[in-house]
């Protein structure tokens, strides 16, 4: 059999086994906290009670497996610190998911809509929306997700623009944090942190290095690290083993392919 040109379906099978089997086993791997996650944690931890954070759900439904533990960790932290949360979504599919995550955690923490958090919903054309909120959030979002005039909630009536937002956390699976940095950050001096899929993390290193982003929570591992800091075991910890065996399977496949190609040459 010529292993260097193997039917791709065998490779699929190897990956499926490498990921399914560890999930069926119950083993947990230790996780150590990296500097990027620590920076986000420290930033949120340094905020005063009742400060306002904006959490933007900038992802597609398909990334929910990876991004939900990240969002949950950040929102838990914010609720524990008694911060006010303004939720919104710049990707339409993030809209409902974001609302579900925030409202179910709010229930758990006994937080009230209009009191501790509001959810503004979705606006298309993210560049316009991000820029618009720098002038006036009310202008971009006259009504919230539930079609109420959110300015009528006293705890949020003083929120006018980025001046009143201590930190924006963009929970994203794509390039949205770039837009937050390019428009809200550079134009309005807004502090921004990103909770992103691991794949996106590399592209944001320049932004943390240059200080344009406060920090990054990258993927399941980032979520697991954040969970460590908050002292609980959530979605991030699960699946770290499957993650590892998946990586090892791919490395093994690459080695196999090279050995096969080498043998064929001879």
């Amino acid at each position, binding site marked *: 059999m010529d292993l260097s040109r*193997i039917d*791709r379906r065998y*490779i*699929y099978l*190897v*990956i*499926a086994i490498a*990921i399914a089997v560890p999930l069926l086993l119950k083993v947990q*791997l*230790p*996780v*150590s906290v990296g500097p990027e996650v620590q920076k986000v944690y420290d930033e949120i931890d340094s905020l005063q009670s009742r400060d306002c954070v904006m959490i933007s759900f900038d992802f*597609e*439904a*398909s*990334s*929910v*497996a990876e991004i939900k533990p990240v969002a949950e960790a950040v929102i838990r932290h914010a609720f524990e610190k008694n911060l006010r949360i303004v939720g919104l979504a710049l990707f339409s*599919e993030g809209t*409902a*998911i974001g*609302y*579900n995550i925030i*409202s179910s955690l709010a229930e758990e923490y006994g937080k009230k809509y209009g009191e501790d958090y509001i959810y503004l919903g979705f*606006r*298309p*054309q993210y560049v*316009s*929306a991000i*820029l*618009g909120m720098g*002038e*006036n959030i009310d*202008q971009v979002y006259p009504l919230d997700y*539930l079609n109420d005039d959110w300015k009528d909630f006293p705890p949020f009536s003083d929120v006018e623009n980025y001046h009143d937002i201590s930190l924006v956390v963009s929970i994203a699976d794509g390039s949205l944090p770039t837009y937050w940095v390019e428009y809200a950050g550079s134009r309005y001096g807004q502090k921004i942190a990103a909770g992103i899929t*691991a794949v996106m993390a*590399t*592209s944001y*290193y*320049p932004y943390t*290095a240059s200080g344009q982003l406060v920090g990054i929570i990258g993927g399941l*591992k980032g979520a697991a690290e954040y969970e460590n800091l908050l002292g609980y075991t959530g979605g991030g910890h699960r699946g*770290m083993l499957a*993650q*590892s065996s*998946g*990586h*090892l*399977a*791919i*490395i093994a*496949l*690459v080695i*196999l*392919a*090279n050995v096969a*190609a080498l043998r064929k040459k001879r």
Partner: protein
Amino acid sequence: MLSKKIPIAVCFLFGLFGLVQYFSPHPAAVSAYSTVLDWVQIIFAFTLLVGVVSLLQIQLKHVSRKEKYWGYSIVTIVGILVMAVFGFAGGTERGTAFMWVFDNMQVPMQSTVFAMLAFFVATAAYRGFRLRNVEAGILLAAAIIIMLGRIPIGEMISARIPETAEWILNVPSMSAKRAVLIGIGLGSITTALRVILGIERSYLGRN
């Protein structure tokens, strides 16, 4: 006139305004700017409606002409109509039929399409990471170090692996990335300038 000159003039005026307003904090500039931002959102919304109508037209054509796969076109048409009826009649809040379909049909299908990437990454790596020359060797080495460095097992093998991975990401990889970004920036800016100046107007057709 209407097919060519006016669009070019509009493109120039709004392009120039988009560029110039960046430099002005004056309320007049800011308010004009947010007005135009709203306009763009509104035009986009209407364009999306046009997209939906044209999609429906094409699918209906498939069905009426009984073209290949016309049965599947019915599935698409029904999908659109069902979501529209649910969404407009029943609302989009939690617990509505609209959200039920979204949560139990759209989300799982999309997540599955995305999850197929795990398999595709493996086949691409299997095929693409061959030690053919120096470049391919560097590509392969960087990928493997990072892959090991991002999982706890890498740390167990040697503490140097995550350190090296971090260094690669922050130093050599980052410097190349910056250069790529700068190049893209230059390409984008000159393209945008050509658009504003009306040199680049393929989107208008050429006649």
